[in-house]
């Protein structure tokens, strides 16, 4: 039986929730933006009016104000958005037990087995859309199709408050005519490559020989070809309501921060790395994993960024080892040609912490064990008295020392694979 998959995308999620809670600004152009003083001053979301004025997500607040002088900028209220996200998921759960969230505002749900109960995919989409509007006061765009990729495409196709059904009869007309960059997982650089070979639309991509795409793009070539032809058969991964967001199969744990001021020297960088690693390592220990690989992300003032990663000699969850690896990575790869604006630390290749570790004659395992006990004790103190209760000396005496990445950690969309 053909699958029926819906993808629901809440329209201008943050901005519309703010509009709901502030009736007085509902008819004005509204954007949700970060705090410029903390240098998070970009547009996170905007409502329809602001969109019409040309305000774009991701641009700086001052740029947006130039285009739209009467723009109302609201500070973000993540707890509220998380609550709405959870409530929306609950509504999807009425029609299917297979709901896969993709970030806070998007979800797939597989209603193949509910069609007999609630009517066709389109009818279910209408019901969901009605429920969301009545109960949450916000609107959604829903795409209905037989695979996840086309369902997502459908939800992006018409906005706001719309339902797009993509069937085997109309997909060539609707999807194939669109620009190749609109397909999930075709970003700037893939698009450039494809355009070099005269592939401008999704239809052209679909009709290109998959062998040629594999030759040019590696294994992603095959994936994209399957996406374009509607052959994607990845299941909607059921999601447990009890868990919070991203606790499916963890692939990596990371934190990053745009610092309140530029980082000028190694001392600043060390300080930020330690601060981020404290949070990352603590989360790593909470999930009961060791990591094998440490990666850093650096972005400078000119907004150029790079990522570097390295393997650890032994699986580890020690703050000290992870931080030292991150510092080594940084020292080997950056020369302070420009000041740094934002940094991230991430650990991947996670293995359960019950994995046996190969000891060696010269490695000082006793010190590592003591270190682990120290980390445990610190974790315990932090759980009882807050994340800033125990701190490293490097992180004291700086205006940035009050940053708490663990507490401010919010869940963002994770990869499709």
């Amino acid at each position, binding site marked *: 039986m053909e699958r029926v998959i819906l993808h629901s995308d809440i329209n201008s999620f943050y901005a519309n929730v703010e509009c*709901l*809670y*502030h*009736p007085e600004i509902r008819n004005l152009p509204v954007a949700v933006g970060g705090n410029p003083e903390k240098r998070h001053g970009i547009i996170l979301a905007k409502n329809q009016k602001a969109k019409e004025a040309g305000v774009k997500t991701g641009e700086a607040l001052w740029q947006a104000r130039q285009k739209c002088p009467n723009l109302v900028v609201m500070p973000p209220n993540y707890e509220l958005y998380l609550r*709405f996200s959870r*409530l929306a998921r609950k509504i999807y759960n009425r029609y299917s037990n297979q709901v896969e969230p993709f970030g806070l505002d998007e979800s797939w749900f597989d209603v193949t087995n509910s069609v007999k109960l609630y009517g066709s995919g389109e009818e279910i989409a209408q019901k969901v859309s009605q429920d969301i509007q*009545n*109960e*949450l*006061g916000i609107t959604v765009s829903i795409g209905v199709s037989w695979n996840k990729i086309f369902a997502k495409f459908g939800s992006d196709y018409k906005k706001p408050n719309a339902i797009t059904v993509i069937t085997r009869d109309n997909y060539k007309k609707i999807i194939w005519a669109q620009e190749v960059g609109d397909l999930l997982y075709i970003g700037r650089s893939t698009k450039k490559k494809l355009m070099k070979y005269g592939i401008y639309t999704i239809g052209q991509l679909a009709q290109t020989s998959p062998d040629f795409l594999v030759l040019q793009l590696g294994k992603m070539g095959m994936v994209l070809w399957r996406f374009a032809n509607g052959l994607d058969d990845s299941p909607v991964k059921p999601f447990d309501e009890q868990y919070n967001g991203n606790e499916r199969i963890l692939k990596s744990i990371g934190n990053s921060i745009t610092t309140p001021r530029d980082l000028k020297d190694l001392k600043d960088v060390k300080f930020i790395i330690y601060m981020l690693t404290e949070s990352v390592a603590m989360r790593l220990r909470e999930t009961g994993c060791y990591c094998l690989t440490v990666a850093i992300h650096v972005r400078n003032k000119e907004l150029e960024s790079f990522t570097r990663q390295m393997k650890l000699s032994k699986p580890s969850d020690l703050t000290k080892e992870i931080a030292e690896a991150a510092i080594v990575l940084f020292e080997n790869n950056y020369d302070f040609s420009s000041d740094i604006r934002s940094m991230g630390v991430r650990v991947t290749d996670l293995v359960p912490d019950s994995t046996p570790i190969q000891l060696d004659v010269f490695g000082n395992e006793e010190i590592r064990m003591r270190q682990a006990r120290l980390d445990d004790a610190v974790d315990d103190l932090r759980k009882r008295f807050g994340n800033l209760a125990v701190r490293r000396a490097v992180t004291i005496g700086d205006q940035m020392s009050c940053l708490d990445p663990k507490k401010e950690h919010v869940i963002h969309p994770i990869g499709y694979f």
Partner: protein
Amino acid sequence: MVIKKFVQVVARFQEDGKMIPLQVLWEDGRVFEIDRVLDMRPGVSMKVGGQGIRYTCRIQNKEVCLYYEEPKWFVESKEK
């Protein structure tokens, strides 16, 4: 103008966890008995901006919407 007014509520918790409001205590000391809960479902108040469980109640022969927006209760009030 309609404003979002948070109010004190006396409620009964049933065995199944359902919560039924019984009285609304106004700030000036008046007590409004809820004669009957006509409807309860998740809902939004577009007028004052809020989202929660909406209890449509009959109070003194008038239909009033009482919202439970965790963890507070509010009504759409006309008073200043």
